[in-house]
């Protein structure tokens, strides 16, 4: 897949909260479809659909054990996609830390006004 399309597929895959939760679960070790379906109160076919999206985006892969076919995280691909989001996030976090400091000053001012 072309790099830009791959990144689009990855962003689309990351857009869903269930899929993000699946990735978070896989970050602590590989798991079978049954194990992944368990905490989500979802049917196995529903979970399988999410897994297919993640697989297509290259974010997870399947193990070779014939029965379980455990899914595992492809950390490299995830890192590639989150790099962009993370840079954007760091930029805004810098601004919001300054806003925290400003709000502290404004609160103090407001309290003084009330006293």
């Amino acid at each position, binding site marked *: 897949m072309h790099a830009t399309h791959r990144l689009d597929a990855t962003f689309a895959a990351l857009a869903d909260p269930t899929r993000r939760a699946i990735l978070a679960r896989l970050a602590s070790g590989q798991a079978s479809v049954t194990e992944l379906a368990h905490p989500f109160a979802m049917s196995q076919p529903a979970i399988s659909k999410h897994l297919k999206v993640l697989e297509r985006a290259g974010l997870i892969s399947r193990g070779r054990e014939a029965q379980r076919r455990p899914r595992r995280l492809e950390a490299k691909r995830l890192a590639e996609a989150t790099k962009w*989001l993370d840079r954007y996030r760091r930029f805004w976090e810098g601004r919001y830390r300054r806003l925290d400091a400003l709000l502290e000053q*404004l609160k103090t001012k407001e309290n003084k006004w009330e006293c």
Partner: protein
Amino acid sequence: MGMLKVTTPSDREIVMTRVFDAPRNLVFDAHTKPDLVKRWLLGPPGWSMPVCEIDLRVGGKFRYVWRRDNDGTQMGMGGVYREIEAPERIVNTEKFDEAWYPGEAVDTLLLVERAGRTTLTQTVLYESRAARDAVLKSGMEKGVAASYDRLAELLASTT
């Protein structure tokens, strides 16, 4: 106060969520009063914000200009307010003077207060997925990168 979350819930959006330890009227003021906005909505280190004009009414305009102090590089943006519900919600358009993405974006700021804390949700909706991804890939740092590129060119031509 809490971690900033950045997500891409659809093809055309970037959504930021963060909790502030302050009532929402103060968070709203910090987004709408120029003397307050200038104190936090800054660029990367070394940049100042010499222009911050806000005409806070539906149809009113805002204009921000950031300046890199050591070489005078400027980056400007502005837009028009579409909806204002103080102190809860603001919808406005935004466009950079030298936009690296096509079209205008639409920003929605939502402030929800609970037990003295405010959850801020800032959604930016771009005209296309390509525009959204261009912003994610280059971000606000593009202006900085561009001036470094010019410096690199200058150094290359003088050696």
